């Protein structure tokens, strides 16, 4: 297999979750790359929503560097503003939310507002919900990209910004007044997670070749559901890497980023 980076694995795995003939509401960075990769491979009729206001752009003048990038409107079918595209989600036209966050719990609740428990004077203040809270509420299914670390996969998140299955009770989302089905996939470099239908708890679906389910569990604070049929994550081929590196993120804004610890 060719050598690939963590970001490339995440983008490739993200792409695999997206079906053709669907609409994905994308967040900045890897979700955009994953969706572009899907369009170039197995899902040519997959389209994106960008929250500043565009539906189904054709991104042939370059990858948008952010969801507000003017390039994200290029050759769109429809372009209005934030209200219009979020109302597409409320009406049920957006199949996937593709978001990220700082912490996630076993029910897929995600924090991207604060770290620390005191809202008015937090230990760390993040940018805030942005579109994520609304996307997780009202797109069909939520896909999240996370870094697999114990402090991020925690028993309780400090602040629920993007709703998952709440406390896991069957009517949590209904009582919350939201419309989407909820968490669907969580993508990390080392493992792919889904959610158990009966308990709504996070379960391991695939591990990166070379890892065992037990090693994944050790990087997580809460107890994972580990079914007997965990499979290996597919790895990007030379052609996938060519698309990611030379066609989609040719300037290396996201895939060649150096992560500061």
């Amino acid at each position, binding site marked *: 297999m060719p050598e690939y980076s963590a970001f490339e694995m995440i983008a490739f795995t993200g792409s695999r979750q997206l079906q053709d003939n669907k609409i994905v509401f994308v967040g*900045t960075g890897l979700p955009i790359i994953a969706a572009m990769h899907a369009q170039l491979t197995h899902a040519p009729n997959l389209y994106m929503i960008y929250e500043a206001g565009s539906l189904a752009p054709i991104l042939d003048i370059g990858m948008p560097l952010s969801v507000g990038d*003017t390039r*994200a409107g290029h050759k769109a079918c429809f372009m209005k503003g934030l209200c219009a595209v979020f109302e597409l989600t409320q009406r049920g036209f957006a199949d996937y939310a593709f978001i990220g966050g700082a912490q996630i719990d076993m029910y897929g609740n995600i924090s991207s507002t604060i770290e620390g428990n005191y809202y008015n004077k937090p230990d760390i203040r993040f940018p805030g919900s942005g579109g994520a809270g609304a996307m997780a509420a009202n797109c069909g299914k939520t896909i999240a990209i996370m870094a697999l670390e114990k402090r991020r996969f925690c028993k309780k998140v400090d602040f629920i910004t993007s709703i998952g299955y709440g406390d896991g009770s069957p009517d949590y989302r209904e009582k919350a007044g939201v419309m989407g089905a909820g968490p669907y996939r969580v993508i990390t470099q080392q493992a792919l997670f889904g959610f158990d239908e009966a308990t709504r708890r996070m379960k391991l679906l695939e591990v990166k070749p070379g890892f065992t389910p037990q090693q994944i569990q050790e990087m997580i604070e809460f107890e994972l559901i580990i079914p007997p049929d965990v499979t290996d994550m597919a790895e990007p081929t030379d052609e996938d890497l060519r698309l990611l590196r030379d066609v989609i993120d040719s300037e290396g804004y996201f895939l060649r980023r150096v992560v500061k610890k």
Partner: protein
Amino acid sequence: MLGPVSSKIKSISKVKYDEKPFEHWGLTSNEVRKITEKKDHGLYDKRMTLKDAVAKLVKDGINLGVGGFVNTRVPAAIIHEIIRKGVQNLTLSFHSNSICLEWLAGAMICYPEKVSIKRVELAWWGYELIGIAPLWRYLVQNKIVETDDYTNYGMSVRFKAGAMGIPFIPVRDHGGSDMELVNRGKMIECPFTGQNIYLLPACNPDVGIVHTTAADMYGNARIFGALCTCPEIAMASAYTIMTTDKVIPTDTIRRYPNLTEIPYVAVDAVVEQPFGCYPGACYGYYWFDMDHLRMYRGICDDFRKTGNKDGLKKYFNDYIFGCETFDDFLEKTAGYKKLRQLRELDGGQPIYTL
């Protein structure tokens, strides 16, 4: 009596927060209507200098609605003029924004006697790819400003409710998240379906600030590219200051009235300011200047890490207080070659100003 009810968020939330009785952070729908009723609603020439517009409309204690989205079509020139004039006890209302807010925050940190922010109602404050917003982090972690968190849809639709002249609007998000507990929305039982539904208070700023692709002298404006929430902000605000990259004839507006995204009645000042979003982008005209955004963000991050204000003060002295107009700023920072390059980077996105 229906509601208030709640989701099950309280059973799982870890968050502690200051509980406060509800208060309006801007005007009520009735108050903003009264102001509007007293205005002249005829067509008159609203062109003026940015200095005059800001001097006339930006007063201490106002709620300022900020248009654009992160680095796109942000009202950069207007923010500069607001900082030069000075304003105290601002409430900032916006969905997602970047350098405009970091400029205001930097001004407050260096020159508190000139600029101060009291509270912020928002969805997101940062630079996306370029990084977190250092001054936002500084202000909140030190409890210097009061905050109220919504989603991007939440803030946008609060402006929309403001634009509709209604006091609140039901939405399908926020419920079941900690925003349900900490923000000023309320869960009720829907009187028609019996299901829980979240209500958000309308947002009617005292002053809205927006930049548009093109407008006539009365304020009829066209916007190309994503509209963000600029039409709603302009319609919701008691007064709107608009910069535009190009003033166009009213005959042009009247030829295609469907292309008018903001009608003249919602606008109080029209200022032609080419590159008025710089270092932000304006679809069809110029892309954002990553170098300048990174440079200012770096200065702010140095302050956050060291507490030393020298770099920030130098930036303000060189680029804001040291400039009489936004044209001076463009000349000092970008210059012709950079602006030309940003125009090329836009890729010639199609706009229509004829």
